[in-house]
């Protein structure tokens, strides 16, 4: 078989991407609908976006969500990177199987189980539920995603540089920050972003672990969605989609540039 695309391949890609993108596109289009009826087009309008600014409940929820997402993904990135180092660099140690089990299981664990179990933990230790409990819950389930992303970079990584630094007497701690971290930085950054969006997105775990005063944006959206489709919700969703799209595109361009630069430097080091 030759390399290249057949008509069947092109059709699969086109239909696949149409399936992935048309629903999101329709949602964005109808957020600019003048009518309150989301299914009948009545002309272009941005009124629903202005209505959002007046909606204090939604704005509060958005602020809570952003804070939780930012702080939880920061901590999750540190913990997840440590976990990835543990899995790839430290060979065997007592309890390694349990550890890797605890890293991989949360990736596929149904959210209802994670949410319920964390809630019951917080109740058992008498921890007041609210902002902090959601934060702890989000750190716990997102750090495993960070660990997997960073780990996949660590296994394909040339150990010679690290070893050279260590042989030349650089202490392990310094070697990590001078050599390892800069090399795995793109993976650490994408781990952070993954953790951030997972936290931003989470409804089930947050609903279980939250308490008074810490209603997140997905929880607000969910309670309104249950009552039906409204243009305000379409507008909120459009804003979120726009933010995520811009961030992901910027990040991927930056990673690509960093990757190219790194390769160029490696080549220069080899020939120079």
């Amino acid at each position: 078989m030759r390399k290249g695309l057949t008509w069947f391949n092109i059709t699969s890609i086109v239909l696949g991407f149409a399936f992935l993108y048309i629903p999101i596109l329709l949602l964005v289009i109808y957020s600019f609908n003048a009518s309150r009826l989301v299914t009948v087009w009545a002309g272009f309008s941005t009124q629903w976006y202005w209505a959002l600014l007046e909606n204090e409940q939604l704005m509060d929820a958005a602020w809570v969500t952003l804070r939780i997402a930012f702080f939880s993904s920061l901590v999750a990135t540190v913990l997840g990177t440590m976990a990835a180092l543990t899995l790839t660099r430290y060979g065997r140690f007592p309890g390694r199987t349990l550890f890797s089990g605890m890293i991989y299981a949360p990736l596929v664990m149904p959210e209802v189980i994670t949410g319920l179990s964390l809630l019951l933990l917080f109740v058992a230790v008498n921890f007041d539920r609210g902002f902090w409990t959601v934060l702890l819950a989000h750190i716990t389930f997102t750090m495993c995603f960070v660990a997997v992303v960073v780990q996949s970079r660590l296994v394909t990584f040339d150990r010679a540089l690290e070893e050279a630094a260590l042989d030349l007497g650089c202490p392990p701690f310094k070697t990590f920050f001078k050599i390892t971290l800069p090399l795995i930085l793109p993976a650490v950054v994408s781990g952070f972003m993954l953790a951030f969006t997972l936290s931003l997105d989470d409804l089930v775990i947050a609903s279980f672990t939250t308490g008074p005063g810490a209603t997140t944006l997905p929880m607000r959206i969910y309670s309104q969605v249950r009552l039906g489709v409204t243009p305000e919700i379409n507008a909120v969703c459009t804003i979120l989609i726009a933010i995520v799209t811009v961030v992901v595109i910027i990040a991927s361009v930056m990673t690509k540039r960093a990757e190219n630069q790194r390769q160029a430097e490696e080549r220069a080091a080899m020939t120079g």
Partner: protein
Amino acid sequence: MAMAGEKGRGRWFVIAVPYLWLLALFLAPFLIVFKISLSQDVVAQPPYAPTLDLAQGWAGFTEFLSGLSFANYGYVLDFSNEFLEAYGSSLIIASISTVLLLLVGYPIAYAMARAPRSIQPTLLMLVILPFWTSFLIRVYAWIGILSQEGLLNQALLALGVIDTPLEILNTNLAVYIGIVYSYLPFMVLPLYAALEKLDLTLLEAAADLGCPPAKAFWTITFPLSLPGVAAGALLCFIPAVGEFVIPDLLGGSDTLMIGKSLWTEFTVNRSWTVSSAVAVLLLLVLVIPIVVYQNIQQRELEAGK
């Protein structure tokens, strides 16, 4: 081979921090869920009994043990309580969705792997991008499309394909569409990773020896992509069994799924002990696929070294 911080306190610190975190916030909660599943509901704070009173020493401990019972499991496993049906129908819905995901995802992944190298990163990003946008938003988008007055019905009516609007929203069909739509990137990515590694000279050799393309696909390409198929299938199947948002928003009142039953038991009936028993049994159902998934991940990791 010297490894960064192989010896000394630094190594133990790097291991211990995430380890202890996961022990406290991932493993311990499961033990608590198990314990509460053996307790009874009471009107108190916390709303279950017995509680372990360490102040009473050994006597408190034996009293605690004698207070535990499997009554909640009896309740959950009783045929009249719909939980068994919900487990069964979740497994069926998740299996059918996984097969549909394979059927939809495989041609996409295959075409991506065959595309010119230069556009592969772009295609990959286009598959991942919807995954970054909120899951809730993606499910919500389908409500507007599938409802009675929705965009799909409007389009079909306008085209004259149908005379009366189709009822899709609030049926199991909508749940399948929702799961396939939201989980598609999870299926395509591992499939693409497996297909992209495929050695094309094998297919050239088969073609030179007169093997027709279709036969070459089934004897070479597909068997070699099986690790990707297994990883993708498990990555979709396991969370789909416990799915809550999709059946709740797109499914109907007769759509039984165990994630939704657990949620209802917890938020509406407010029985913490029964919901814990439901969670423990759900975990038992999923433990084999989860272990298989971990082994695949582990093998991938070893292979990457």
